[in-house]
């Protein structure tokens, strides 16, 4: 009986043809560019391309489904999603696999990186929590937010995957920012972090320090740790204004660019499509697909604190705003999630190129 009820509630939702067309087109375009670049980078490896296309397809289905879920529902689910993600994360040290860090879980049909789930779960839960609080958040609310952000960040950092940990932390922090944390906190915490940075230096692992020094001066060890950055810069720089043309990038085709189907795929793209291509995609990625950004995480609920309507009720303008923005955020998150956590080649590059800052861009109309 309840099943019928559930079906009556959900089927219309899933079939609602309401789609944010510009966002959808932007996503399609990015996916297309990603596949094109991968096609060029993974010369002769049709399997890789096919797998990536299937991931995109799966991602779009998930995106569609999640975008049909009302934000209120997501708000209620947030703690459960968070709890599930953290549990999975706790399992990683025992069951995980991975090359440099144990960060993947083998689920049988695919590998899951629980850390990727948290990129979604952390901002959702923070938003959900702050929604119940008087804004701007007071110290107590902030401390709870800090715990929500800090716990998974710490767990990911000891994997060790410092990069993902920082992304997760930032995605949560931006929700707090949107919720209206006082400037004195922002500046206070900011300067404290700046002051603490040199103190953290001795505690960093060797490869972290190496990476930092390489970032500052890749030419110091051009054949060793600097090789990747240098070759990537050569690839990008030799692309010029309009690029060398699709499939004609020598740096990737001749294997000078390491990991050119994964971490450095953006360099492949920049080499083949030049400045026009790289600025086009990066801005579209950042502004376009994130235009529906995580406003929903904080702002959406802030604006419509009492709205409980479902899609069948005539939406107010503010509700429409909320729904779309949340959908955008979730779509975006899902996209990133499907791309990267499914070990998608293209995805992991986009992951690096688009940390949570991108997803925190407000809708701006």
């Amino acid at each position, binding site marked *: 009986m309840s099943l019928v009820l559930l079906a009556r509630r959900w089927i219309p939702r899933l079939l609602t043809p309401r789609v944010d067309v510009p966002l959808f087109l932007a996503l399609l375009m990015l996916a297309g560019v990603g596949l094109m670049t991968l096609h060029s980078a993974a010369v002769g490896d049709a399997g890789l391309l096919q797998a990536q296309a299937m991931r995109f397809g799966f991602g779009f289905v998930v995106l569609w489904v999640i975008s049909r879920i009302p934000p209120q529902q997501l708000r209620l689910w947030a703690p459960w999603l968070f709890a599930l993600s953290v549990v999975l994360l706790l399992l990683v040290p025992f069951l995980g696999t991975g090359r440099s860090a144990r960060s993947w879980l083998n689920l049988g049909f695919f590998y899951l990186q629980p850390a990727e789930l948290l990129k979604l779960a952390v901002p959702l839960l923070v938003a959900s929590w702050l929604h119940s609080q*008087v*804004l*701007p958040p*007071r110290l107590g609310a902030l401390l709870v937010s800090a715990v929500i952000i800090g716990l998974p960040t710490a767990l990911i950092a000891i994997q060790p995957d410092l990069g993902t940990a920082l992304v997760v932390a930032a995605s949560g922090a*931006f929700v707090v*920012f*949107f*919720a*209206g944390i006082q400037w004195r906190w922002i500046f206070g915490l900011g300067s404290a972090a700046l002051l603490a940075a040199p103190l953290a230096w001795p505690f960093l692992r060797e490869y972290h320090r190496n990476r930092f020094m390489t970032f500052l001066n890749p030419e110091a060890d051009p054949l060793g740790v600097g090789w990747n950055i240098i*070759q990537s*810069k*050569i*690839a*990008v*720089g*030799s*692309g*010029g*204004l309009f690029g060398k043309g699709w499939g004609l990038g*020598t*740096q990737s085709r*001749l*294997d*000078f660019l390491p990991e050119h189907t994964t971490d450095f795929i953006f360099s492949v793209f*920049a080499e083949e499509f*030049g*400045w026009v291509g*790289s*600025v086009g995609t*990066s*801005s579209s990625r*950042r*502004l376009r697909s*994130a235009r529906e950004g995580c*406003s929903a995480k*904080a*702002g959406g609920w*802030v*604006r*419509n*604190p*009492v709205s409980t309507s479902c899609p069948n009720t005539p939406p107010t303008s503010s509700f429409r705003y909320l729904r779309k923005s949340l959908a955008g955020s979730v779509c975006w998150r899902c996209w990133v999630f499907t791309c990267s956590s499914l070990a998608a080649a293209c995805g992991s590059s986009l992951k690096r190129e688009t940390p949570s*800052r*991108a997803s*925190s*861009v*407000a*809708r*701006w109309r």
Partner: protein
Amino acid sequence: MRQRVRLKNAIQDAQRFRRRAAIAFVVVTLAVLALAGRFAWLQIIQHAEYVTRADSNRIRTLPIVPARGLIFDRKGRLLADNVPAYRLELVPEAVGDVDAAIQRLREFLPLDEDELARFQSQRKAQRRFQSLPLKFRLTEAEVAAFAVRRHLFPGMEVVPYLTRRYPYGELLAHVVGYVGRIDEADLERLDAAAYRGATHVGKSGIERYYEERLHGHVGSERVEVNAEGRVLRVLDRELAVSGEHLYLSIDIDLQQAMVEAFAGQYGTAVAIQPSTGEVLGMVSLPSYDPNPFVNGIGRQAYADLLTAPGRPLFNRVLLGGYEPGSTLKPFVGLAGLELGLRTPQDTVFSSGAFRLPGQEREYRDWKAGGHGTVNLREAIAQSVNTYFYTLAMDLGIDRMSGYLQRFGFGEPTGIDLLGEAVGIRPTQAWKRATRNQAWYPGETVIAGIGQGFWVATPLQLAQATATLAAGGVRHPPHLLRQTQSGFDAPILDAPQPPLEAPVVHQVQNLQAVIEGMVAVVHGPTGSAREMGVGASYLIAGKTGTAQRVSRIGDEARDQRTLTQNQRNQALFIAFAPAESPTIALALVIEGGGSGARAAAPVARRILDAWLERKTP
């Protein structure tokens, strides 16, 4: 006191959110702009630099090694050839466990330690996928032995290549020399660009002197490589230009006859065509086989050569410093005539001993009791020391040396071989400079008979003899006669050294000396008259017996351990036919006793070979 309750204010919250969103938008926009600026910096402003770096990543220029020019004798017989050979190469990456594979290989293929050591050092310097030579010049049996086991050795291959071969082996080792693998010393000397891809370079002899012409011009091909350096395709190619073929003035038949004439004795001989200065033959015995040097002679084999009796590696023609002894007398006699101190008819009485006024020391003639009264002709024919003692005293050392310089004594001859010794042409200034001692008159006396400080190389003696034979015109000796750039090209005469002015002013003076030299061989009193018996042509010659070994080379011998006979060097200079010479000869037989008995018969056999074609 009532606590103040804060209530949620949706309107305020929404406004705050809008402000924050606007700030975030600006920040992100700035970040995107910064990124676009960074891209513009890399892709537009620094574009050219990165294009260059991308190209230098992918484009390599590989050398195409030119074929080395061949070397022929004057009749077109091949003296240095490029022959196909086989070497065993391996690609470490494809082999896997290289050391284990080599162990298995050694079960049927002998590999000496030198080869292995070279391989291992080369292996460290190269990438794992690059092919490395393990063993050069496989024999056919070895190639076959490997071929049947080839499936057991993945990553190893027998590769054909061209290697240098010297068909005449030790007959010409001191003339043609050899090529060897380029070593560190060569790298410093050579133009790296011209030797890209080259493995061998001329190390000695003609191979060294004419290295540039024999080497040719390296070609190149531009290829696209991937990050591992593997060649993917050829973009374009510039062909190599083969080295020039060289035709030497050496006559291999004469060379062979010269070696045979020595009949196993150690020594050296140089034959020159007087009218041109072309070297017809030059031998330094014992000799060695240059072929093992081409692909690296083993350490032990090299050590054996270094310590072998007679020092086969030592090139006596260029480096051997010998006391000329009596072979210098014709030149001293000519000095007396040319400088107006003597006429051919002037006589000197030889009593068997000559004394300087006021001195006790006797300077002896070789014949006890002396030769009696002799003129120049007899003085040369019988090798009368006293005649030249007195002449030397009249000339003085500096005048005598100054005149003999015209014949090239004490000077490099300028032959087209590297490293010739210059010998010693003593003067007062020379003695002051090298020994810081005053010149004593007694030293002038013995200098008159080619003893004392005199040191000459066989090449210098031959050149001086050829100058006499050529009517007093000096032609610097040389080996290169003709060149040819490619087999289709015409054979061109090599430019000859510039003609020098005659060193003899009065032809009759020269004639008088030559008469004396003819009398040495054909005169009734001639010191080498046995040699002339039965000759169908006239020989002008002069014997010489030097009493000690004197080397400019690095060899030092303890004189006291040698017997008298061993200390004597038998010398002979000659040209023939005396009236119109076609060959001038200088030869030294080490430990040979007297010039007349030991050296003259050898010279006769050589002259016969040249003039009567007695060689088969």
